[in-house]
C-alpha cells in the first residue's frame, strides 16, 4: 500500500512544478510584444498566482489526509467517528473561494473594458484602420486610408495603434496574433474590432484559431511591424508597383483555396464590404463538394455562382444549380 501512496504523491507533486517552470519558458503568450498582449499576460500571471495557491493548498491537504488516515495493519481496529459536518469549516471554504473570485473578477472586468479601447499611452496616436476579411482559407487586409490591399500578410507601423475591423466572406474565423493581442471572431455580415499596438519592429505570426473546414490548418498570416518610415516607404512602393484588384480577380480569390501573398493598389471595399448586413453573399456550395454522398444544395438569389468552377463535375451537379448561372454577383446584385 505504502508504495502506491508514494507514487501517488510523487506523481501529483510533479504537476505544480511543471506549471511553475512553464511560466519561465519562452511561450508566446508570456512574451508579449505590445501593450495589449502584455495587459492580458499580466492578468494571466495574476490568476496563475492565485490558482497555484489553490493547487498547493488542495494538494497539501490531500496528501496529508490520504497519508495520515490510510488503512494500515495497525489501525484495522480503528472505527471512524460519526461526523455530519462542521458549519465553521464549511463557511470558511465557501468564503475563501468567493474572495478569490472577487480578486480575479475586478482585474478581469478592467482588462475587458481596456481591450476595447486604444491602450494607455497611445491615446494621442491616430489609429491605423485595417479591414480584415477572412475567406476560405486566406486573410485579406484592406487599408482604406492608403487604398491598398494585401493577402496573407499585413504590415503595420510600430508604436501606433492599429484598429482591425474584422469580417468574413463566409465561414467563421478567429483572428489571433498571440504576440500582440488576443483573438476575436471574424463573421460574415458582421463587424468585430480588435485593437493592438506593436512596440518593436518585427515579424509576428497571426493565425486563424477557429476551425473552418478542410483548409483550416495553415490559414496563417504574417504581421510585420515596421518603423513609420519603412511603412510609408512600403505604401509608396505598393502604390507604384502593385497590380490592380478587379472584381473578377477578387471573386477568384474568394474560392476555397490557399493562396500565397498578394498585394494590390486598390481595395475590394470599393464594391463590397462583407460586414454590411445586406452585402452580396459570395457562397458557392459546388466548390465545397468533396467526399461522401452529395446532398442537394439550395440556390439563393444573392448567391455567388460560377459556371467555370473547376471542382464542379458532372455527377455532382444537381438540377437546382442550373437555374441561375451567369449570376456572378457584384454590385449589380446588391440591391437587397
Amino acid at each position, binding site marked *: 500500500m505504502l508504495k502506491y501512496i508514494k507514487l501517488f504523491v510523487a506523481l501529483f507533486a510533479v504537476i505544480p512544478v511543471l506549471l511553475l517552470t512553464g511560466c519561465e519558458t519562452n511561450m508566446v503568450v508570456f512574451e508579449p510584444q505590445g501593450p495589449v498582449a502584455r495587459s492580458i499576460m499580466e492578468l494571466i500571471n495574476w490568476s496563475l498566482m492565485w490558482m497555484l495557491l489553490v493547487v498547493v493548498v488542495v494538494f497539501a491537504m490531500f496528501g496529508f489526509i490520504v497519508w495520515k488516515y490510510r488503512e494500515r495493519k495497525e489501525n484495522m481496529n480503528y472505527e471512524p467517528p460519526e461526523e455530519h459536518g462542521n458549519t465553521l469549516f464549511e463557511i470558511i471554504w465557501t468564503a475563501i473561494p468567493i474572495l478569490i473570485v472577487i480578486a480575479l473578477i475586478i482585474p478581469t472586468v478592467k482588462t475587458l473594458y481596456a481591450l476595447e479601447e486604444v491602450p494607455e499611452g497611445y491615446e494621442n496616436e491616430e489609429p491605423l484602420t485595417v479591414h480584415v476579411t477572412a475567406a476560405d482559407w486566406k486573410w485579406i487586409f484592406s487599408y482604406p486610408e492608403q487604398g491598398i490591399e494585401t493577402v496573407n500578410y499585413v504590415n503595420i507601423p510600430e508604436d501606433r495603434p492599429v484598429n482591425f475591423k474584422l469580417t468574413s466572406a463566409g465561414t467563421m474565423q478567429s483572428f489571433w496574433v498571440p504576440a500582440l493581442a488576443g483573438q476575436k471572431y471574424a463573421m460574415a455580415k458582421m463587424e468585430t474590432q480588435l485593437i493592438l499596438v506593436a512596440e518593436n519592429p518585427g515579424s509576428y505570426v497571426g493565425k486563424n484559431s477557429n476551425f473552418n473546414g478542410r483548409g483550416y490548418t495553415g490559414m496563417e498570416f504574417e504581421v510585420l511591424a515596421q518603423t513609420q518610415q519603412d511603412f510609408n516607404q512600403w505604401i509608396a512602393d505598393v502604390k507604384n508597383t502593385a497590380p490592380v484588384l478587379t472584381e473578377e480577380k477578387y471573386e477568384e480569390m474568394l474560392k476555397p483555396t490557399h493562396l500565397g501573398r498578394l498585394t494590390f493598389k486598390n481595395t475590394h471595399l470599393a464594391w463590397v464590404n462583407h460586414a454590411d448586413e445586406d452585402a452580396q453573399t459570395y457562397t458557392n456550395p459546388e466548390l465545397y463538394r468533396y467526399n461522401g454522398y452529395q446532398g442537394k444544395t439550395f440556390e439563393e*438569389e444573392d448567391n455567388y455562382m460560377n459556371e467555370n468552377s473547376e471542382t464542379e463535375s458532372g455527377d455532382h451537379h444537381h438540377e437546382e444549380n442550373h437555374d441561375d448561372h451567369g449570376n456572378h454577383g457584384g454590385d449589380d446584385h446588391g440591391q437587397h
Partner: protein
Amino acid sequence: MSANVNTSLPLEYQTHQSRMNILGFWIFLGAEIVLFATLFAVYAVLYQNYAGGPTHQDIIMIKEVMIQTLLLLTSSFTCGLAIYEMRRNNVKGLISWLVITLLLGAGFLFMEINEFIHYIHEGATMQTSAFLSSFFVLLGTHGAHVTLGIGWAIIVIIQLIKRGLTPVTARKIFIIGLYWHFLDVVWIFIFTFVYLKGMVG
C-alpha cells in the same frame, strides 16, 4: 405498482401509477415550454431579417388569424367542459364535448393550412428569408402539436368507447386535457408576439 389505490381522489388520480403518469406529463410539459421558449427566442432574433423578402405587414391575414384564435380558445373551453363531464362520470357528455373540441381543433388546423398556402402563393416560403424560416417553423411546430393532439385524442376516445371510464382511460383523457390547454396557451403567445406585434411593426 397498481396497489396503493385511493378511491377518495378523482378517478384519474386514484392509482399510484396514474399519479406518476400525470406528474411525468407535467414535467414533459415543462420540457415543451422550454422547446417553445427556444423557438420564440429564435423568432425574436430573426424576426426582422427580411432579406428583401416580404415583411409581416405584407403577408399577415389578421382576420383569418382572429377566427383561428377564436376556434382554439373555444376548444380549450369545451375541453374543460369535457373534463367536467368526466368528473360527473357522464361518458356520453365527455365524448360529445371531446368530439366538439376536436372539431374546433380541426377547424383551426384547416384555417392554418389555408393561411400557409396563401403565404406560399404570395411568395413567402420558408426558404425566402430568416424571418419567414422562423415564422413558419414556430407556427408549424404548434400546428404539428395540434395535429398530434387530435390524432392522439381520437385513439383515446376509441379506448373510452371500448372500455368505459376507468382509472386508466380517465387518466389518459385528463392528460390530453392538460396537453390541449397547453397548446392553447402557446397559441396566445404566438398570437400576441407574432401576429399582433407583427401588425404593429
